[in-house]
């Protein structure tokens, strides 16, 4: 009887297998609980981020209604045009105001870069020279030049000097 008892594996209430099983179920339950806590936390963060996205999107929509990009481009174009344009109404008014009374412009033309050419009639070479001097003295006009002048007769019998004049508007 004593030999038999000594040969058996001792078995208590908690064997090693029980310990492993309990540890395993404990670990799984702990991991599961932690995962659900994590899930709840991530869901909460996600809701917060989605709410922020919604807020920012609303603000963007409100700004989009203001057509900011379009206004910015339009403003840039307006500034560019204002900086690089000649106000021809002012320029022509100024040209006519400094032009001597014995000068008659038959035609004139102007380009965007400020280059201007006029076709002129007057009654003497002196008047032609005076016009050139007047324009040269004026700060608004530079590079005043005529390539040729010619003398003719008017239908009334008087002298007519005709010439073309080019200059640049400052």
């Amino acid at each position, binding site marked *: 009887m004593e030999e038999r008892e000594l040969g*058996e594996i001792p*078995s208590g209430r908690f*064997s090693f*297998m*029980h310990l*492993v*099983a*309990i540890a*395993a*179920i404990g*670990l*799984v*339950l702990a*991991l*599961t609980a932690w*995962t*659900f806590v*994590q*899930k709840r936390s*991530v*869901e909460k*963060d*996600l809701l917060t*981020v*989605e709410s*922020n*996205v919604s807020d*920012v*999107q609303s603000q*963007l929509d409100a*700004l989009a209604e203001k*057509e*900011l*990009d*379009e*206004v*910015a*481009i*339009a*403003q*840039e*174009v*307006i500034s*560019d*045009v204002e900086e*690089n*344009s*000649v106000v*021809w*109404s002012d320029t*022509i*008014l100024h040209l006519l105001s400094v032009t001597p009374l014995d000068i008659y*412009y*038959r*035609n*004139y*033309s*102007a*380009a*965007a870069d400020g280059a201007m050419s006029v076709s002129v009639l007057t009654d003497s070479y002196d008047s032609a020279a005076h016009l050139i001097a007047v324009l040269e003295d004026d700060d608004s006009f530079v590079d005043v030049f005529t390539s040729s002048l010619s003398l003719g007769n008017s239908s009334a019998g008087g002298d007519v000097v005709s010439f073309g004049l080019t200059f640049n508007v400052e």
Partner: protein
Amino acid sequence: MASGNSKSSLVAAIILIVAVIVGAFVWQPAREQVLSLESELVDAQAGLVLLETELADLVLLDSTLPVAESERDRILEAVPNDLAQDELIRDLDDIASSVDIDLTSMTFSLQSVQGLTADVVSISASFSGLYVDLLDLLEAIETNDRLFKVNSIGVQLGDVTDDGEQLMTFSVTLEAYYQ
């Protein structure tokens, strides 16, 4: 004693099986859900950062633009969002009428100007009328609500009327802009 041992082992085995079942069917799916949600969160945060950057840029842009709504409307009227050729035709016709000058012709061509953020429509227009109205015509063009850039002008003086008024033909090349 052997029966007690078997029973005890069975309980341990059942606990292990329950642990495996819980692990496989509860914990694992929940973990996958968490990973999926975390990935979604990262994407949402990245999207939020992009939107916040865009918002910051727009707020900065907004602060550099005129505050008054009327001024912004005026700017957009000067350089509208589309060609609006009908408005261009009406504008030129109205300008000519307002200064008692005849608008004899107008031609349009679409252009692309390098370095300019807006599109360009080039307009050549011819007018005829009294020379004294030339400056009013030019001013009306320059102050039109729709922005016009005068690229070139040509004035040809003609006959004098019985009333002693000088006639002229006037040609102008303009640029108008749209987005």
